[in-house]
């Protein structure tokens, strides 16, 4: 770090700006969800995915992992399904 760094005002992003950015991303998402029919669609989406996979492979409820990462430009949804070694047993 240079001795003169402190003279240039925005040395690193100020925490207030970070706060504002985080809020804008979160609230854009929350406002669009509020009261809309797609609010909380994730549990249903998960149930549908599990049902679809069970037509072919016996998986348990706990074998599904859903992760979300929301961004300002795009969000990503990651769904991990653990398949049993032998697809013989019936789903629990």
């Amino acid at each position, binding site marked *: 770090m240079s001795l003169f*760094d402190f003279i240039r005002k925005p040395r690193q992003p100020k925490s207030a700006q970070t706060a504002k950015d985080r809020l804008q991303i979160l609230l854009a998402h929350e406002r669009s969800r509020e009261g809309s029919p797609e609010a909380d669609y994730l549990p249903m989406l998960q149930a549908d995915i599990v049902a679809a996979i069970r037509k072919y492979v016996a998986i348990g409820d*706990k074998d599904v992992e859903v992760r979300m990462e929301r961004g300002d430009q795009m969000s990503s949804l990651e769904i991990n399904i653990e398949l049993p070694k032998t697809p013989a047993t019936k789903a629990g």
Partner: protein
Amino acid sequence: MTTEAKNNPPLGRVIVITSGKGGVGKTTSSAAISAGLAKKGFRTVVIDFDVGLRNLDMIMGCERRVVFDFINVIQGDAKLKQALIKDKRLDTLSILPTSQTRDKDALTKEGVEQILNELKTEFDYIICDSPAGIERGAQLAMYFADEAVVVTNPEVSSVRDSDRVLGLLGSQTKRAETDGAEPIKAQVLITRYDPSRVEIGEMMTVEDVLEILAVPLLGVIPESKAILRASNVGTPVVLDAPSAASEAYEDAVIRLTGTELEMRIVGERKPGLFQRLFGRTA
């Protein structure tokens, strides 16, 4: 705590962070204490009980990763494991976010008990961030607790509400209702303490507060600029740059784990020229 401790059976201690009054620092303290415990190697989960007003996720910095919540698990729409968010900084820390639903009845005693019992099989500490007030959410946050941290500001209404909550901890909880059970171990955490105002007699002293509440002291957290900064960036204060507040929380965490530690009031240091030059904040 050493890494081999991770192979020990989980402690399964349920600790409620409560106060009665709102805005005294419960969520800030829940985040700091849970991160502090996890940093020491304890498997820790922090639960947001403030149904309808989710906020712990922002303070912990995981708001973009919420998929399922507490109520989804209670209602059977998701498994507990799916709703837990693993902290990206500490692998020993998990967060269980609350729901944004306005239906407060979604929180049931049976549901809460079942979730806590499941968490006890995997975690050393289960930290429950209580909502303000003494309604359902606050009652359920404290009902199954083994210990309580009563967050109090040195200010009349906060001390009064803390006294009220201490009464409820001693009467309206599982431990209180169970014959022969040890009562909840309650400790006060004084937050937003301003030594300069205490000095000139504008604010009650730690001794004043303790004399009134008559429960052991867990720690004294000074009023600190580091708290707003930490919440801006979504980092529990003990994981952010060292500050008077982070040191005070670290001390409190040591006491919470049962280690005796001399009480000290960490003051907010005024930045000297050196600190200003090199950009370190107190």
